[in-house]
């Protein structure tokens, strides 16, 4: 077949047009990395501190797309305090959760009081009738061996650790762990160890008697979610929300590496936990949920710059496993700042979004710290911490011309009175902890 010479480029273009979308689709990264600064224009002439916000955006997966299978183990507290409505609601919520799973998903259920029982060993969720029967048979009684429960749950998850699953333990408890290792630190470290295996523990605290420090620490260190459920009737909703998250995981084993040039010194990570070693900052997340943004805030110190100078503050390298393809992907970005002599320029360039993130995280961190102080009996210091943070944030906001963004920080000084005066109720403490947790991990509202 002979094609006229004039038509050849057109044909080539047509071919390209046909192939390109396919290429684009195949190459579309699961995660988009955006790097922004609180002040892209820094004042010249003196060393400055800047906040780099590394935001990971995971687009929601199209509804018809195949999702990765889930390896879910529920760890249910069935100690005496759960008796009655709580356990009934929990059972119903578990069954509801089970029904949301598909035949490719793995489900296991562990209950614990002072001893541990694997009610449903890890198995495909398709055998739901038998599983539901087992769930309905759970009765309450005994102490709270939380450590053993989570350990047994982890053992169930490990049975399918090698598979292409999203591994998740959901722990539901309403009481204080009183058998086995029971300190927030111990359980936090267990969470950290599980995170290394790719297992996240989501903790659901029911009522006002659980140890919020332990539950948030366990969730934070294993990159799970934490829910504070004052009323057990909300359990079904919480489970639905959590499963929604788990079902929408688009990336796993996310590692954000931020490398600063020799002149720039990383100071701290705001809100999240991570590692700073020399010029390198590393923050890990076990998974990213579709349709949600997670971010990391890093404060760095820059050298004094000349006006008009452009400086690279950091190179960001994000590696993750695309949960749909189970392939490792990388996304890179750079954080660039320029220096200016004009204070107006600096103020004009200030980013309200980044600063809002900073305010939220600083507030959350301050609340957590204040609560720690309060719990160890240092009420005055707790109040002072809140007042200081409030003042600093507002002051910085004013300086950056973002007073409106910093305004919510004023709430901290009111809370300081609360910390100073009366005895904080258990429910209020849990509320503070879970709110802080949400801010610091960008957990979606539930």
């Amino acid at each position, binding site marked *: 077949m002979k094609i006229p010479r004039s038509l050849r480029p057109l044909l080539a273009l047509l071919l390209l047009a046909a192939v390109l979308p396919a290429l684009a689709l195949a190459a579309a990264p699961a995660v988009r990395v955006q790097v922004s600064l609180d002040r892209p224009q820094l004042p010249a002439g003196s060393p400055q501190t800047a906040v780099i916000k590394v935001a990971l955006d995971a687009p929601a997966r199209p509804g018809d797309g195949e999702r990765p299978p889930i390896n879910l183990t529920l760890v249910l507290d069935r100690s005496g305090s759960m008796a009655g409505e709580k356990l009934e609601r929990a059972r119903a919520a578990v069954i509801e959760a089970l029904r949301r799973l598909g035949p490719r998903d793995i489900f296991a259920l562990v209950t614990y009081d002072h001893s541990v029982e694997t009610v449903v060993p890890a198995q495909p969720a398709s055998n739901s009738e038998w599983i539901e029967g087992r769930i309905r048979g759970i009765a309450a009684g005994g102490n709270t061996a939380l450590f053993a429960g989570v350990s047994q749950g982890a053992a169930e998850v490990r049975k399918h650790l090698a598979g292409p699953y999203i591994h998740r333990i959901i722990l539901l408890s309403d009481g204080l762990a009183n058998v086995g290792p029971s300190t927030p630190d111990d*359980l936090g470290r267990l969470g950290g160890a599980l995170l290394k295996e790719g297992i996240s523990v989501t903790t659901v605290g029911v009522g006002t008697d659980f140890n919020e420090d332990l539950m948030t620490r366990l969730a934070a260190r294993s990159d799970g979610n934490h829910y504070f459920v004052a009323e057990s009737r909300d359990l079904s909703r919480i489970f639905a929300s959590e499963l929604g998250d788990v079902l929408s995981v688009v990336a796993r084993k996310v590692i954000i590496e931020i490398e600063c040039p020799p002149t720039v010194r990383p100071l701290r990570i705001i809100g999240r936990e991570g590692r700073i070693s020399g010029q390198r900052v590393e923050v890990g997340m076990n998974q990213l949920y579709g349709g949600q943004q997670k971010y990391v805030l890093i404060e760095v110190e820059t050298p004094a710059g000349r006006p008009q100078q452009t400086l690279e503050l950091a190179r960001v390298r994000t590696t993750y496993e695309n949960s749909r393809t189970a392939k490792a992907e990388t996304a890179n970005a750079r954080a660039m700042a320029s220096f200016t002599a004009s204070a107006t320029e600096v103020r004009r360039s200030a980013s309200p979004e980044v600063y809002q993130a900073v305010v939220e995280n600083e507030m959350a961190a301050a609340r957590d710290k204040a609560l720690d102080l309060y719990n160890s009996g240092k009420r005055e210091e707790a109040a002072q911490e809140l007042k200081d943070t409030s003042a600093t944030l507002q002051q910085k906001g004013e300086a950056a011309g973002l007073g409106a963004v910093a305004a919510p920080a004023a709430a901290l000084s009111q809370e300081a009175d609360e910390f100073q005066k009366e005895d904080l109720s258990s429910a209020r403490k849990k509320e503070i902890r879970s709110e802080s947790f949400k801010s610091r991990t960008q957990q979606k509202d539930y």
Partner: protein
Amino acid sequence: MTRSRIALLAGLLLLVPTLVVGALALRAVRLEESRLAAQAVEASRLQLLAGSESINLALAEVREGMLTTLRELSEDNLAERLESWRRGNPLLRNAFVWEAGRGLLLPAPGRQLTEEEAAFVARYQGLFAGRIPWEFPGADQPPPPAAAAYSSRSELRQLSQASPATAAAVGGGRAQGWRPWFWENRLYLLAWSESPDGRRRYGVELEMMALLSRLVDILPAAPPPGETYALLDDAGAVCFQRGPAVITATTRPLLALPVGPALPHWQVALYAPAAGAAGGGGVRLFGTLLVAIFVVAILAGGGLLLWEGQRHQRDARRKTSFVANVSHELKTPLTTIRMYAELLGEADEAPEKRHRYLAVIQGECQRLTRLVNNVLDFSRLEQGRRDYQRRPCDLAEVVKSTLAAQGGRLAAAGLHCQLNLPAPPLTLVSDRDALEQVLLNLLDNALKYAATGGELQIAAAVTDGAIKVGILDRGPGIPEAHRQKIFDKFHRVDDTLTARQPGSGLGLAISRQLLRDLGGDLLWRLRPGGGSCFEMILPRTERSS
């Protein structure tokens, strides 16, 4: 009394072997129970041993793995390699590099330490400062006595794991160690290795939480009912457990075994609160109950057989004596009748003599008839075939007519009869013939046995719904031993063939039976002043029977 002696002997023959067998069975139950208990304890001990052995093996694997990795770790960029190993391995908590003379190189001393790193440095200060030796006293040495019970497999394993480190130490002069470390009452584990040049020591600290979490599978997943297995930490607190028991600080384990050198002072323990005892107790209770039932059944059955045998023997004896008595009784009047009939046959007798002979023959015939009637009555009563003709009748009239008919005999025996009846007519509904028969029997008895008293009193009294007729004599009375038995069938106070008075032993039995059938009774009482008092009790109105 041979009879009672035989009975006693039979009873003993029954009782003694039964009790002996019962006691032996009880003993066997006890033995079985203690054997079961010992077996359960042994099984639990083996279970515990298996648990502690699995822990040891698991820890040995970990230790081998760690030490091998450390040994094979390349020297260049050591700190970075250790760090990345620590970051990836859930079992690792901290990594360190230490150089003699320079101190810690990792965590790097210059920069700001994280909380975790600071705690690590503080924890092992004594070690890094050289105050405390790197080798753990007792490590890499033959297992302590507590471990002597381990299986050969475990010992082999321990030997094999002990060798590489020792060999390396001897061969290349490169030391390695596995260091349990106690800090603020908690156990930490450190694996370290020496660089080939011997200057540096580097290693990792284990994440105890991850390690313990992995050990959760080691205890039996489904312990036998009632048993609880637990892993106790070095402070004696439960780390985790399998089984239903609620273990508090005061709960004492049934059995506790040290885990061994891998986790110094840790124990695997078995709790069987009351449940174990209840199981053994159940065997004992059940066994004892069975033995008791067995003994009681044998004794009851044997006793019943013995009693039946005795009763049959007694009945047989009575019947023999009854037959002999009755034959004797029948023979006496017959002899008399034959003798007088022969006399009558002799022609030369005077007519008045003949009349006397006839009267004797008549009397003897009547006696014979009474006797035969009694025997017939008795068998009828025994079979419950007697028909009673209940009609209104006057008791006074019955008594009087019976007395009138027997007046001659009474007078002949020298009995003065005294009748003492109340004024109103003693009417009642009853069987007149039966009443007459009872009265006759009683009068007969009085004639036979109480004629020496010379006096016979018949008195009647009316009470509510009953008439009582007493027949009182001044005879010898009834000996104490026979008072309970005189109304028994065939019983005679003197039942020898040579008894002075003839009798079948049926009169009183029949009389009482008749009166009872009519709704009344016959009783005997000692008469004040000597003699017997037989009391007939008769209901005034007929009771439906």
